[in-house]
């Protein structure tokens, strides 16, 4: 094939990756302009990054016409990416998370005295990786998207070079991340071997043919399923592949912890959904058992381990493992007992992921407020007497914690309700009851933090200083948390829009 042909056939396709291209462009612009800024002017880097997010969001908004019927979904670059509602939904979710994390980072990085342009550039590059995870329709694109995201995150979690905990977090994250990517790549190579193509639809056809020819479980398909699932469970920190998460969450800069536990988790779930709803859909009754086991284990271990924690970031790490358990139970509810798709399960998952990014980032944003010169501020005792020192921050933290625990009128309540509803509809009543029961210990450990804020006396009376960027971000997060809790219809419509239908359904 000649070069001219390649360019002619993909000419219109460059439009489809405009959101990613914008982020790369602004990321490179930050790396260049960083040289021109003095130490006092470094906040301009954050502004450039915000501009990049805004332009990327604008191009994503224009693309949405190509995503849904009657024009879409639109495949591009020889079917290696696809612009569909699933991509638009997750793209906006990643961009929103990136914008929030940029807003809460500026002051934090000033206090840490590590205000470098690379920080924001790497955040944009990580977002590019996430977007390719959401739109990839080819194993190569998915793998590269995952690695772009992961490599940026390894560096970001070790960004506080002089802090030993940050060094250690980066080291553990890098080792575990590279290990899990290797396992995932092994699964991808077997998938390629099954089909002779890296295109997801072709592989799905091959697996479905094998599934019909060979009754029972096919060994190669099972090996691919196992390795791919293990690789993704590492990324979303599902038990028993969760050991890295508490250490990384505790050691990484708090803003990056919020990013890892929000956007990166949503991106890994996008990869999970894309692969398991296309490639592995013919063997869905096999993988549903894996999801069930990992979901219940994550719920149990996350909830029980969180009870004894004294460090807020570590506690939130275990709580986010428990949240992963709930989301995985939503995935269990996406398959009817007869192997057909149950859309309400996917809708519940999308809704949960969407609101989770907001209230989870919110909780970490309040932890960032406690950071000041000389005080790390991530122990539960650092919350003592917050209601006197800063009533606003205490009320916000209460709302985010209520939402994490799943208590009305917050978004977390509606999200959990949707999951339980879908579980009951697919005859998983035991799982639904289990999920409800685990809310009780969750309420206990979240309210240990609330008790510290409202009941206990603080040793000093220093008021946290809140910058306008942090106020804006906190306001946006609390509005989404409350609005999705009290008026869920709009958010539900958004979640329904994002549903990815397996082929042949």
């Amino acid at each position, binding site marked *: 094939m000649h070069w001219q042909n390649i360019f002619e056939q993909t000419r219109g396709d460059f439009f489809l990756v405009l959101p990613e291209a914008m982020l790369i462009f602004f990321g490179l612009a930050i790396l260049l302009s960083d040289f021109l800024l003095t130490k006092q002017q470094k906040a301009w880097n954050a502004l450039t990054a915000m501009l990049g997010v805004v332009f990327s969001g604008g191009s994503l908004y224009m693309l949405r016409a190509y995503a849904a019927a009657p024009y879409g979904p639109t495949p591009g670059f020889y079917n290696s990416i696809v612009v569909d509602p699933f991509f638009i939904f997750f793209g906006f979710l990643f961009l929103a998370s990136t914008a929030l994390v940029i807003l809460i980072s500026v002051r934090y990085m000033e206090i840490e005295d590590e205000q470098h342009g690379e920080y924001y550039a790497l955040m944009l590059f990580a977002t590019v990786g996430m977007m390719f995870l959401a739109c990839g329709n080819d194993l190569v694109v998915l793998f590269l998207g995952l690695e772009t995201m992961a490599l940026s995150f390894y560096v970001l979690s*070790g960004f506080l070079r002089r802090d*030993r905990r940050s060094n250690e977090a980066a080291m553990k994250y*890098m080792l575990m991340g590279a290990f899990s990517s290797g396992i995932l*790549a092994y699964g991808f*190579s077997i998938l390629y071997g099954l089909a*002779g*193509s890296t295109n997801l639809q072709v592989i799905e056809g091959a697996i479905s043919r094998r599934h019909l020819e060979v009754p029972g479980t096919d060994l190669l398909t099972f090996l691919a399923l196992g390795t791919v699932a293990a690789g993704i469970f590492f990324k979303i920190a599902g038990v028993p592949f969760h050991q890295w998460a508490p250490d990384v969450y505790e050691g990484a800069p708090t803003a990056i912890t919020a990013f890892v536990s929000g956007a990166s988790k949503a991106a890994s779930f996008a990869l999970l959904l894309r692969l398991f709803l296309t490639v592995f859909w013919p063997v869905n009754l096999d993988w549903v058992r894996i999801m069930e086991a990992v979901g219940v284990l994550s719920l149990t271990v996350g909830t029980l381990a969180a009870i004894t924690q004294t460090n807020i970031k570590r506690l939130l790490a275990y709580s986010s493992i428990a949240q992963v358990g709930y989301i995985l139970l939503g995935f269990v509810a996406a398959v009817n007992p007869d192997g057909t798709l149950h859309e309400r399960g996917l809708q519940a998952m999308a809704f949960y992921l969407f609101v989770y990014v907001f209230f989870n980032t919110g909780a970490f944003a309040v932890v960032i407020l406690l950071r000041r010169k000389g005080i790390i501020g991530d122990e539960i005792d650092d919350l003592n007497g917050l209601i006197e020192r800063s009533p606003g921050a205490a009320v916000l933290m209460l709302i985010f914690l209520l939402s994490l625990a799943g208590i009305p009128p917050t978004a977390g309540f509606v999200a959990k309700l949707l999951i339980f509803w879908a579980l009951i509809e697919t005859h998983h009543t035991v799982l639904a009851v289990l999920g409800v029961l685990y809310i009780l210990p969750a309420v206990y450990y979240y309210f240990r933090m609330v008790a510290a804020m409202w009941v206990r006396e603080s040793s000093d009376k220093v008021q946290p200083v809140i910058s306008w960027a942090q106020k804006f971000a906190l306001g946006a997060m609390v509005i989404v948390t409350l609005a999705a809790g009290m008026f869920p219809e709009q958010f539900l419509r958004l979640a329904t829009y994002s549903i990815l239908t397996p082929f042949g359904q």
Partner: protein
Amino acid sequence: MIPVDDYLFLSLALFTIGVIGVLTRRNVIIMLMSIELILNAVNINLMVFSRMWGTVDGQVFAIFIITDAAAEAAVGLGIILAFFHNRETVLADEMDIMKW
């Protein structure tokens, strides 16, 4: 011609050695080397399947995996250097500020 199965067993053996290496060795550099072994197992798989099917996708994928391994090694060694700078050790057992 050597049958495809033999290559697959070779790559499975490499993969297993890599996984065991990451899980049992305590020197971070050797853990990184074990991860490279896993990626090499992936590359052998891709090459064999590419030859078997007569499609070029696998070779393209393998080139990307090699590139990714290089990027990962660069970032990994950078992180190890920063860690060594502060702690003067590359042993995973001594990464114990936070519970492992």
